[in-house]
């Protein structure tokens, strides 16, 4: 982190620290205006790994995992909503802590009654994928310190995050059943993390949207989420424009689809969650030609959480990810690339404990035992031959929010 970034982060942190406790103790939603709401959160993580780097220099114990956000919404009439959230995220070498517009949108829902709601959104909206992506950077909306990497890859976070464009949404309710459909079209946010993830390194040139991408989710709920079923997907097109005059690096196109099927059952004391993902990726017209390939990544997890008391929650999860579902042990990809096979898969057991100290304060721990390194970013681990197949992770997260 540069000194400039450091000071920028410090200023934001100081601001939030000054604002959060004041408002948290003064009352929930300041009533400056009946239709206006302000919410904010701040979290600091600690990550320690036995091998490999995740969220900074984790082999030595890293504090380079921080999230801070503040959002404001205004509902001048029941059919109009204006909302925006600023987010600062420091995630090892992957995000530098600079402040970004997480979302900024106008929602117009002209048709609304107790059986249906239909409306449109314009601006930057969160991509509705799976059960957690829409709020993935908000600590107390996640079940654990880190979301299951098989679906919510940290290194692919930036592609899944948000779109600049428009979205249609419709909600239908009948008795104890509800159906929610969201269909969006727009340009995805892009940055160097995508080059690392899809081209193997940060190449000289620009990885950018190639036309418009689409995102959507269809979700069924029984009894307000006692049972929740969802199908969501992305269809994204990117092109890499190489800097001219470099004969060894050529331009090309990458087409990414991303499909997630989700299931959740919520009882009073426990919840069971499972999601399954498929991601067909295709590389076209790149140089060297060896880059042009297609493969289908696959990932799934099964997660159980148990609320022992109102304040304490335990989590157990098994999470598996394969960069090519026809080469789950990575041997084919390894023989083509000459790199270790463990880069192409991961199987992770996670144990988590969450303590809701107050409704505004949370402390959470997560312990992972991992076989394989697929979720780890090449940007944080530039030498793949130095990575270890078997590794463990211990993390702590302290969060404030209101």
């Amino acid at each position, binding site marked *: 982190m540069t000194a400039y970034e450091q000071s920028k982060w410090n200023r934001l942190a100081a601001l939030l620290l000054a604002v959060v406790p004041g408002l948290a103790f003064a*009352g*929930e*939603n300041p*009533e400056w205006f*009946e*239709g206006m*709401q302000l*919410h904010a959160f701040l979290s600091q993580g600690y990550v320690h790994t036995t091998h490999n780097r995740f969220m900074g220099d984790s082999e030595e114990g890293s504090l380079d995992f921080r999230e801070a*956000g503040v*959002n404001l*919404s205004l*509902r001048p*009439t*029941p059919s109009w*909503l204006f*909302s*925006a*959230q600023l987010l600062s995220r420091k995630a090892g070498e992957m995000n530098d802590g600079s402040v970004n517009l997480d*979302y*900024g*949108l106008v*929602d117009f829902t002209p048709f*609304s*009654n*107790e*059986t249906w*709601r239909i409306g449109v*959104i314009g601006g930057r*909206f*969160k991509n*509705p994928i799976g059960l957690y992506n*829409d*709020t993935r950077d*908000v600590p*107390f*909306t996640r079940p654990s310190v880190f979301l299951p990497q098989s679906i919510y890859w940290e290194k692919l976070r930036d592609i899944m995050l948000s779109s600049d464009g428009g979205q249609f*949404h419709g*909600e239908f*309710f009948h*008795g*104890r059943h509800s159906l929610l459909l969201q269909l969006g079209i727009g340009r995805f946010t892009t940055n160097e993390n995508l080059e690392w993830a899809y081209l193997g390194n940060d190449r000289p040139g620009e990885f950018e949207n190639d036309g418009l991408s689409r995102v959507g989710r269809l979700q069924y709920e029984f*009894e*307000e*989420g*006692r049972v929740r079923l969802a199908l969501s997907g992305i269809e994204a097109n990117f092109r890499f424009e190489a800097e001219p005059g470099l004969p060894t690096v050529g331009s090309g196109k990458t087409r990414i689809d991303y499909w997630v099927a989700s299931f959740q059952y*919520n*009882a*009073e004391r426990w919840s069971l969650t499972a999601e399954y993902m498929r991601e067909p990726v295709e590389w076209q017209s790149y140089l060297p030609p060896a880059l042009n390939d297609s493969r289908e990544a696959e990932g799934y997890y099964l997660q159980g959480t148990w*609320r022992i008391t*109102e*304040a304490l929650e335990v989590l157990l999860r098994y999470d598996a990810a394969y960069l090519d579902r026809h080469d789950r042990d990575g041997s084919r990809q390894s023989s083509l690339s000459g790199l270790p096979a463990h880069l192409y898969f991961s199987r992770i057991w996670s144990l988590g404990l969450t303590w809701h100290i107050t*409704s505004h304060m949370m402390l959470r721990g997560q312990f992972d035992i991992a076989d394989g390194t697929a979720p780890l970013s090449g940007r944080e681990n530039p030498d793949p031959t130095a990575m270890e197949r078997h590794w463990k992770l211990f993390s702590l997260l302290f969060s404030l929010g209101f």
Partner: protein
Amino acid sequence: MLAGGPLYAVQLVVNPSVPDTKLSPSTVRALFNMRLLQWSDGTPVRVYVLPDDNALHRQFCKRYLGVFPHQLRYSWNRRVYSGIGQSPHQVKNVEEMRQRIADTPGAIGYLPEDLIDDSVRAVEME
């Protein structure tokens, strides 16, 4: 009061200006899920709730909504932190709840039966 159970049954209450006198179970669920945002005369709905761990809140969730507090919280958080909705106003205790409902046109919340006076109106669920 927080540690033990509530002494009186929980009752749905509204600001006396609210035109609707009876509400169906699905309407009550839609109101507290923050997806039904106006009353039949067009007045904006203002929802008030107690904290998630409050015994009266839990009783209300169970009796009127048929959900657990953590389900409601998930749905509110998802709307608030993805920018597509707002959350209810959270009050500290039942006295503040009664005061806010009495003072705010379009307000809905819940109270123990013994705390209901002329400043608010009890509503039956059909």
